[in-house]
């Protein structure tokens, strides 16, 4: 078909976390510009399987930009060259015939490589488990208007809650800092009445967990915000910092 592309891929291959990996070059032919980046990977993997080679392991699930699984660092950028998209939403029309594309896993000490492009992001789960929830008693659901929430707070909380935990912020940050993720999870609850009872305990324990996972420290370069597929704002980081300092200075709740 006309308009189809031939590309050179340089993809990180690594058997498991205990061995060294390397970039391996794969040519792919006749790639339709309408394919998603992951579909292009499917084509390549079919090709590898038919050649009797080990297919490339990569994470994916929903393929519609909501699960956050499709972690790929493409040509030096998280989720590739487009803004506001995940890898599954990146289309091959963003590339040109003859292009060389380098694909690497997220690089962060806190996200160890499991295999090829798959990294272990359970550090994020442990940060959430440390406090990124509200303790609610079960029972009948409340009347919808029992808790008035200002439009502004509802909108801002919703913007923070758009975070899909993909890890692009960590992957792209020069310090591999998780502060955009953690601050989004802190903010979505700090802005709502349901989040208030645990607000100051939550921010302290989530930050403590983040620190113990070995993420780096934010230097406010703003790269995370620019690369976030959901456009999470770094104003959330300022909010997290405010809450954290307020908790440490003014609140009695202590967290170990």
């Amino acid at each position, binding site marked *: 078909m006309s308009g189809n592309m031939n590309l050179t891929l340089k993809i990180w291959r690594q058997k498991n976390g205990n061995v060294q990996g390397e970039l391996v070059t794969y040519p792919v032919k006749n790639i339709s510009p309408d394919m998603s980046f992951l579909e292009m990977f499917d084509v390549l993997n079919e090709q590898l399987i038919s050649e009797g080679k080990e297919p490339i392991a990569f994470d994916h699930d929903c393929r519609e930009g909501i699960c956050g699984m499709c972690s790929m660092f493409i040509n030096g950028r998280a989720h590739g*060259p487009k803004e506001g998209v995940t890898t599954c939403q990146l289309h091959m029309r963003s590339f040109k015939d003859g292009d060389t594309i380098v694909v*690497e896993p997220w690089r962060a000490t806190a996200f160890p490589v499991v295999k090829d492009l798959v990294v272990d992001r359970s550090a994020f789960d442990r940060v959430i488990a440390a406090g990124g929830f509200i303790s609610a008693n079960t029972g009948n659901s409340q009347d919808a208007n029992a808790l008035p929430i200002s439009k502004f707070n509802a909108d801002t909380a919703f913007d923070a809650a758009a975070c899909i935990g993909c890890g692009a912020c960590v992957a792209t940050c020069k310090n591999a800092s998780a502060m955009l993720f953690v601050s989004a999870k802190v903010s979505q609850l700090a802005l709502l009445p349901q989040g208030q009872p645990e607000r100051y305990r939550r921010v302290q324990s989530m930050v403590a967990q983040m620190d113990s996972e070995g993420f780096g420290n934010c230097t406010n370069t703003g790269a995370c915000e620019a690369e976030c597929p959901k456009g999470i704002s770094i104003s959330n980081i300022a909010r997290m910092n405010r809450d954290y300092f307020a908790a*440490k200075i003014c609140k009695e709740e202590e967290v170990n």
Partner: protein
Amino acid sequence: MSNLGKTLSSSLGKKLVMGITGLFLVSFLLVHCAVNALIFLNDGGESFNRGAEFMGTNPLIRLMEIVLFAGIIWHIVQALVLTMQNKKARSVQYAAYTGNANSKWYARSMGLLGTLILMFLIIHLKHFWVVSRMTDEITSGRETLFGEMKEVFESPVVVFLYVLSMFSLAYHLLHGFQSAFQTLGFNHKKYTPTIQKIGVIFSIVIPTLFALMPIAIYLGIIQ
């Protein structure tokens, strides 16, 4: 560890120290620049020498000088710890990393810019602080600080070094000024754009004024 110790050794605590010491250094720059700018009155250094004498003898200022040294050292030590931790947080580097697509080079180079400033600071302290505080050159009246300035800036190499260092300072501040407010938790639709504007103006005006001092003296514009 004590509560305060735990807080300050957390990631956000270390950032807090960076931000507060950074802004404290910013306030020092403002005073330092204001006093030095007295040479632009071109009165043979008379006003500047009086200003310098006040700064050298006023007990409150002398006390603040100790706080200033402590602040610089804390800023540097904390920067070192943070930078090392940040390096460790990415043990395997990317083969391709397109930083310019999402952030400014100077925002990613605060450690390098800071190190250049530190190297300048050491030379600068040797030129002026050691002479005025560690020797009796000036207290004995054999030399004035303005005279010392004229002597130091006879060398084109020194002038060049000072001007170049002001570029490092300018870029360090261009990121650092607004970054400090973000770190401290000040981010608001109403005032953040103003802070950013003040930051840009500060980062251009102060280093430019500083850079003009050696140039003006070298060229003999200031006598």
